[in-house]
């Protein structure tokens, strides 16, 4: 049974998804175009016994959600552009200390203050490499309001399961777009909680991973009296300068995502069976890509679409397969070629690569994609 259909904004669907996933704490700071996420969280969290706090800045918001997560609450923050830059410090902390949390970034045009209410997708590479040092990253990119709901839940689940911060990489188009959606019943939703230690305090090694490369996680206040640090640490959680132990830790952090990538990676493709040309896009641009494909198909051009849902880790394997049979990939994105870099790396010179880029604060229109494709026909 589904709930009654509602007209809902992407940012609102994000909060609905977070609450469905079990979010009990949100810390944020006002920034357009993500502010509705904070506003709606402030309104809805107390109704489910959860808590909202508006912190003094973006850095503090990121810190607070890590603290709350360590004390046992599923936690989230939301931001845009400049705020996402400020999150990077503690995002790296959450990666190293393996603290589950969700960071929503409703992308806007940049660099710097840029075009504050206009959409962009310029943070794709920052989502991957924004914090210093090699660190694990999962980033999900919804392209509809309903998918924002679903992927927010997925973000919490992945975060809890793999003890990694998960980025919900939205864009202003999806954040502010209103669509008619039907949300599923809570009972139909799969919720994953972090695994907790089963051993006594004396035997608990907070950073000793199981075979799945993920260590069980106690909560502060449970009586385990454990230590968490942003320094490189051994299995006990205490700092070490031992090169072999540091090396093992850093590699495990990346390996735990690599090991489970088949469970993490998600993408959507349409009409790729016979396609000569495949449009690759994410988020708001995918809606223009769909329209472009349909219009070109009507003209007899064999076009398909490929939409990474996990932009990180990038759905690479399937793209390699497609590169063997597709003549041309068209990467359409609201930046100057960030995802194209990744596609180029993956397809090598097996197919032609065409870029459709736009950074003027306007959305990419279907005609712009069609025009570019017609140029090469």
């Amino acid at each position, binding site marked *: 049974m589904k709930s009654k259909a509602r007209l809902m904004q992407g940012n609102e669907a994000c909060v609905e998804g977070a609450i469905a996933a079990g979010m*009990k*704490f949100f*810390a944020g700071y006002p920034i357009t175009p993500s502010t509705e996420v904070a506003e709606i969280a402030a309104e809805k969290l*107390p*109704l489910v*016994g959860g*808590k909202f*706090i508006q*912190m*003094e*800045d973006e*850095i*503090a*918001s990121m*810190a*607070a*959600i*890590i*603290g*709350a*997560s*360590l*004390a*046992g*609450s599923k*936690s989230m923050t939301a931001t845009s552009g400049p705020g996402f830059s400020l999150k990077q*410090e*503690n995002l790296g*902390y959450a990666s190293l200390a393996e603290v589950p949390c969700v960071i929503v970034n409703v992308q806007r045009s940049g660099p710097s203050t840029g075009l504050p209410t206009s959409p962009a997708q310029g943070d794709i590479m920052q989502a991957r490499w924004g914090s210093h040092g090699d660190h694990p990253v999962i980033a999900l990119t919804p392209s509809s309001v309903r998918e924002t709901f679903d992927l927010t839940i997925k973000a919490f689940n992945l975060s809890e399961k793999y003890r990694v911060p998960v980025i919900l990489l939205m864009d202003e188009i999806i954040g502010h777009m209103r669509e008619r959606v039907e949300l599923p019943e809570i009972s139909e939703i799969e919720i994953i909680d972090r695994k907790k230690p089963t051993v006594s305090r004396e035997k608990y090694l907070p950073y000793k991973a199981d075979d799945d490369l993920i260590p069980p996680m106690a*909560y*502060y*206040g*449970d*009586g*385990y*009296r*454990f*230590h*968490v*640090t*942003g*320094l490189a640490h051994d299995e006990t959680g*205490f*700092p070490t300068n031992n090169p072999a132990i540091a090396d093992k830790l850093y590699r495990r952090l990346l390996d735990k995502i690599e090991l489970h990538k088949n469970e993490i990676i998600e993408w959507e493709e349409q009409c790729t069976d016979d396609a000569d040309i495949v449009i690759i896009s994410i988020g708001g641009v995918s809606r223009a890509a769909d329209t472009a494909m349909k219009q070109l198909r009507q003209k007899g051009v064999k076009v398909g679409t490929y939409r990474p849902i996990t932009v990180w880790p990038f759905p690479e394997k399937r793209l390699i397969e497609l590169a063997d049979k597709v003549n041309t990939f068209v990467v359409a994105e609201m930046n100057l070629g960030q995802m194209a870099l990744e596609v180029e790396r993956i397809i090598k010179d097996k197919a032609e690569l065409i870029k459709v880029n736009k950074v003027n604060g306007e959305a990419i229109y279907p005609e712009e994609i069609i025009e570019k494709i017609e140029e090469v026909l």
Partner: protein
Amino acid sequence: MPSAIVSEYFRTNKLPQIWCPGCGHGIITRAITVAIDKLGLDRDKICIVSGIGCSSRAPGYMDFDTLHTTHGRALAFATGIKMANPDLKVIVITGDGDATAIGGNHLIHACRRNIDITAIIYNNNIYGMTGGQYSPTTPKFDKGTTAPYGNVDKAFDIPALAAAAGATYVGRSTAYHTQLLISLIENGIKNEGFSLIEAISVCPTYYGRKNKKGSAVEMLEWQKNHAVNIAAASKMAPESLDGKFLIGEFKNSPEPEYTKEYQKIIDMFKKE
């Protein structure tokens, strides 16, 4: 075998600490455990949070739930912990640079909210971990590696800053005045709200050497000879306070606590 207090509250397998000979930080850290012991708190419900710097290494030696965070951010992490689980007694250990420079914004806002956290600022007047740069509490004209000709910045008065920002319990003591320090920390933890205790430490290695303050012993003697308790100061002639600094309880005025106030909002929606 170490003393009873150290055996009970320290991770003795991590000792001795990394601090330099004569560093006051060890004195302050022990004082915190004595205050906890006197209060008879459930040690599994205490969380100690720190930032980055010499002082922030303290929680690693203390046998509680402990969190060593990023530079300046300890109070923001601690705020999340306290919000998620108000049953925890949250104690923040931070330094002068950590708390009042890079973490200055978090400090004033934690004070303003009156969230039930006790912050103990180990003030050694210098950035020690990075080798002796001047901090927001380096006295004017004193030297640091980044103030080779003397510091022209005016120093923060940390208790005055905290009191003005809204902390409801504020005190200051020194590594020398350890008994007073213990009682201020005890009262700070008891205060249901934001408490700040400035614990003036000694850094013989960097601040002391750079400014010809002598050994750790001499620096502690200086504290002994120049600190005046605020209770006594009110009865003293103003000129006799020249060159002195105040210690003691500066503010104790309880107000409604943040997480309790938020809980009232949640309770509005509780279904009977």
